[in-house]
């Protein structure tokens, strides 16, 4: 017995364990490189763009003739959207590394079109590798220059998650601005980001692999500088691996509900990145509410965006999204406070480019002719049932104020308060006077004790689409996303301490206002982000001379520019609605799966009682089903199994069902028995499906100007100015 513990033997055991571990690890990597459990590659024979313009408006570089725009975009705008970066960084991964990496085991390149398409990333059909995409990466993957090191960083921009292709019998239909279908945030080692890090690690360990890697990355470096550059590359590689490990350690257990293809817990990840990674580990919260990537072709017309309709200012939303997608910011060192990599002019360029994007139109030659008679029936039902929430409700300012008296005509009280007309605290209410009713259907308890807001902020906008907020308990869809956002609190102390240090030295930098954040150790999600995003925004505006150097006042004469950059002069004024926001439905047929959490695979199922919806289905490809306006979700190899019984994945709510309306049942309300609802008949469902193929939201608010991309310096490495 004693001999077993002799040190020589112990060493032997340890050594053989190490060898075993190494061989096992190598074997595992070999296996997942060779046989990754991801969807199989399906070849695309043809690409289709939708919504061609009736006139030929676009220049074609290859010929004298003009070509039509598609979904309102010429190729120039499309390329701008696909490749303009926003300042995000992933563990210091550099752009040139991605296309130079090999599979973790072997010499095959890691990133190929085939592999990325298997993972749900999509490619620009028009382009071969070009100056905007030298690495031949999928749509939305691009680069920016790190302001400190000048390194060319991998940048995941808006288009990566907000562009879609649906396939149909070998044809890929391009849905610009549609919901993405990849699993970008996944830490699964067969997925893009994690696999890149694993590959980078084996590259770092294996000197032969590293030599091959360096040769590719440093191909333009002169021989004289090569060994120095290679040394730099090696330390940058190591730093990147370390960052990834720290990230995995902190974030590995925060996302118990697998997001799968096409989803991310957007707000949860923003919070864990900004409040957790960037401020304090105390601020990590479990984020178990994955949501779909929303489609973008009409968002600029809305007064409120996000699934809960929490944010009203475009620039604030975009900056917070960039920070959440890991744009860098220093929030804990007074010397560099608020130094960040967010690219404000680029965000503005993308935002204004999106204003020209139009919804996709149903291609009859591909998906089949629309039965106009049936669609006519559907249109009538749509008006009775859907339009009262989905609108759109165009609103116009009169003398700088919004006239809300129409709101009472378009919405019914029970739409938001339920058939028993209860407040959110459960007390019964009587609402009779819709003329005097607040414009947005919200009770005191939903506002969580805050004073009523001023609803006269859109005065700079000619007109826009009002989005209403349907309380959680009425719509009844999975409450996790909204509840997490409303219930979690974040400690800003490390940041506040640094601001105090600067203020003690005479800085004018502000502290959060007592009204929005009474206790900085318990800041709300939206209020905290509004403060941080506001600092990033004003810092950039100040550098451009739009805001005074020692205050937060706009420089006289620059009001218009600031209003324009912010987006229609909107003030950033987040609201914590305990609600989800129904959006207008033009083009909705192209955006399956449905509901904010993607728990219902088709419109046909969405129009059915929850018992008739798939309890388990499979994601990872987007083969369109024109009959149901959904995607094929049958089981296949490498699929992501979507289990609706898991927290955050509930497929209940938004039901057309029998019994009382409310608590998840939204219709079809009986005309002769108010407060009672019934299922839609099969014929009614078919009619609605038919109509939604051709539904139009009507005239869109007019645009003030062309897309504003004149101030961006990308793809060069330069400072932008205004």
């Amino acid at each position, binding site marked *: 017995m004693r001999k077993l513990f002799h040190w020589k033997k112990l060493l032997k055991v340890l050594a053989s364990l190490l060898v075993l571990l190494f061989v096992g690890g190598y074997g595992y990597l070999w296996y997942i490189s060779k046989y990754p459990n991801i969807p199989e590659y399906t070849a695309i024979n043809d690409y289709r763009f939708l919504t061609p313009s009736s006139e030929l408006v676009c220049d074609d570089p290859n010929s004298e003739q003009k070509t039509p725009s598609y979904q309102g975009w010429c190729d120039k705008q499309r390329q701008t959207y696909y490749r303009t970066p926003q300042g995000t960084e992933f563990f210091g991964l550099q752009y040139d590394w991605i296309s130079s990496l090999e599979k973790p085991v072997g010499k095959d390149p890691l990133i190929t079109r085939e592999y990325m398409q298997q993972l749900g990333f999509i490619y620009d059909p028009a382009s071969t590798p070009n100056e905007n995409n030298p690495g031949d990466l999928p749509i939305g993957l691009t680069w920016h220059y790190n302001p400190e090191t000048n390194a060319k960083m991998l940048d995941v921009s808006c288009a990566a998650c907000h562009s879609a292709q649906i396939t149909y019998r070998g044809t890929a239909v391009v849905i610009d601005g549609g919901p993405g279908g990849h699993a970008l945030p996944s830490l699964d080692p067969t997925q893009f980001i994690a696999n890149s890090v694993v590959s980078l690690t084996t590259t770092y360990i294996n000197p032969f692999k590293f030599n091959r890697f360096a040769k590719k990355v440093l191909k333009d470096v002169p021989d004289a500088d090569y060994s120095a550059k290679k040394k730099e590359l090696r330390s940058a590689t190591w730093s990147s691996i370390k960052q990834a490990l720290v990230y995995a350690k902190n974030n590995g257990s925060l996302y118990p509900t697998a997001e799968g293809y096409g989803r991310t817990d957007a707000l949860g990840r923003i919070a864990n990145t900004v409040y957790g990674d960037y401020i304090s580990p105390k601020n990590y919260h479990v984020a178990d509410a994955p949501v779909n990537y929303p489609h973008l072709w009409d968002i600029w017309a809305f007064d409120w965006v996000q699934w809960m309709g929490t944010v009203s200012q475009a620039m604030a939303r975009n900056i917070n999204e960039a920070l959440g997608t890991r744009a860098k910011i220093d929030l804990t060192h007074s010397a560099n406070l608020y130094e960040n990599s967010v690219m404000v002019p680029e965000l503005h360029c993308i935002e204004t480019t999106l204003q020209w994007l139009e919804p996709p139109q149903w291609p009859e030659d591909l998906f089949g002719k629309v039965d106009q008679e049936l669609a006519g029936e559907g249109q009538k039902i749509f008006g009775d049932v859907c339009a009262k929430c989905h609108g759109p409700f165009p609103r116009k300012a009169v003398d700088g104020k919004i006239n809300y008296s129409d709101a009472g005509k378009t919405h019914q009280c029970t739409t938001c308060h339920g058939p028993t007309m209860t407040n959110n605290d459960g007390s019964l209410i009587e609402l009779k006077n819709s003329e005097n009713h607040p414009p947005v259907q919200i009770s005191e308890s939903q506002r969580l004790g805050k004073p009523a807001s001023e609803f006269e902020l859109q005065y700079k906008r000619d007109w826009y689409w009002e989005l209403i907020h349907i309380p959680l308990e009425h719509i009844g869809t999975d409450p996790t996303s909204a*509840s997490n956002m409303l219930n979690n609190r974040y400690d800003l102390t490390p940041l506040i301490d640094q601001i105090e240090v600067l203020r003690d030295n005479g800085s004018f930098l502000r502290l959060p206002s007592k009204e929005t954040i009474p206790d900085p150790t318990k800041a709300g999600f939206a209020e905290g982000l509004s403060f941080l995003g506001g600092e990033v925004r004003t810092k950039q505006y100040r550098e451009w001379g739009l805001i005074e150097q020692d205050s937060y006042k706009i420089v006289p004469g620059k009001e218009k520019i600031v209003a324009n950059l912010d987006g229609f002069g909107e003030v950033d004024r987040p609201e914590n609605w305990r609600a989800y926001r129904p959006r207008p439905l033009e083009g909705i047929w192209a955006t399956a799966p449905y509901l904010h959490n993607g728990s219902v695979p088709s419109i046909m199922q969405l129009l059915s009682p929850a018992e008739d919806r798939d309890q388990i289905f499979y994601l990872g490809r987007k083969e369109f089903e024109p009959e149901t306006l959904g995607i094929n979700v049958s089981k296949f190899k490498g699929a992501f199994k979507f289990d609706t019984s898991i927290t955050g994945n509930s497929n209940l709510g938004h039901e057309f069902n029998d019994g*009382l309306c409310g*608590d998840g049942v939204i219709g079809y309300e009986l005309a002769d028995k108010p407060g009672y609802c019934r299922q839609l008949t099969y014929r009614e469902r078919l009619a609605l499906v038919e109509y939604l193929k051709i539904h139009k939201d009507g005239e869109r608010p007019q645009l003030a100007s062309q897309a504003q991309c004149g101030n961006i310096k990308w793809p060069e490495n330069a400072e932008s100015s205004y």
Partner: protein
Amino acid sequence: MLIKALKVITVLVLLYALLFVSVFAGQMLVGAFRAPDAGLIDNTPLGKANRRTETAAIVESVRKIVTMERTPQFQRDAHSKAHGCVRATFEVFESQSTYNHGIFSKPGKYQSWIRFSNGSVPAVVDTKKDARGMAIKVMNVEGEQLLPPQYSGKTQDFVMINSPAFFIRSTADYRDLETAVERGSPFSYFFGPHYINPFKWRLRQLYIALGTRKAPPPTPLSDNYFSMTPFNLGPNKIKYSAQTCENYRAPGVDDSRPNFLREAMKKVLSNQDACFQFSIQLKKPGARMPIEDPTVEWSEDASPFVPVARIHIPKQNFDTAAQNNMCEAMSFNVWHGVKGMEPISYFNELRREVYLHTAAYRQMRNDMNNGEPNSWCDSLEQYCDGEQQTQSKNLGATP
């Protein structure tokens, strides 16, 4: 080697048992000594809003469970097996002014329906241990109703089971239970998904739950029934109870038969009238009588049940196809009632939504009538003949 392994297993089992016993003892002690309603009351806007979100989730789960358990009729989500609906008169007699609120504000005689039931879902045979329910619908009651007109008639319902305490402590717990039932593993509510994490055990609630499952009484008429949750009675907080007048027996009925409770009640009522005493228990200041926590029984020593009404069940044959159908279509809800006796506590607020929703859902799916009846005749044609007419005229609230 084998012996060693066995030893290790034995020790592990013993440790687990010890853990089980100590967690149980700990939870029972905490349950007995913590301040009433400790940790349950949250009337902040956030607390209220979260509760409302919870309610919606529970309603949706219940709707799903009712759909899963259909046979093909859509059953009640609790107390799905009825033993029958019997005609009764609810006779409010003169009492102290303390009790003179709502339906008890003045003496009167009312036509009523009483439904007796087993608690379990799906329905189980009567011989099994179960909770038993008694629900009374008193009709043609004067006074302003608690619910909006489209959901109310002129009724005052009383809903009870044969235990004074409920096994679930909070509406949040109730949501967990419904989720567990919906996923087909109700026991995971008491033990957590893997049985291994003692922080997820609810052993005190399990103990109370097992306590509410009782061996069947000789007949449904021979038991005592309790409201479990509290109500306002004017300025007072109360619970109510119906106590049987005697231990009714049904000789000759085989109590090993699956539906013997119905048979026994039929037998008793074919020979004789039956009665219950309806009593009210006031909440006494200072006594351990929580409002929100229905797992704590209100002590009868501290505040006894005081009779305020008599329930008279005349000799009758209730077991007809028409009456049984009517029985299934009827919905009993603590919120069917008049002002002066409002249901209180978060549980009762939850019940409003759940009861209204399941009733309407079942009634529409089963294609049954769902109005509130105003008299026996209103419910069933057969009670509209001359004799019954006179009887119903004699009844009704006396001025």
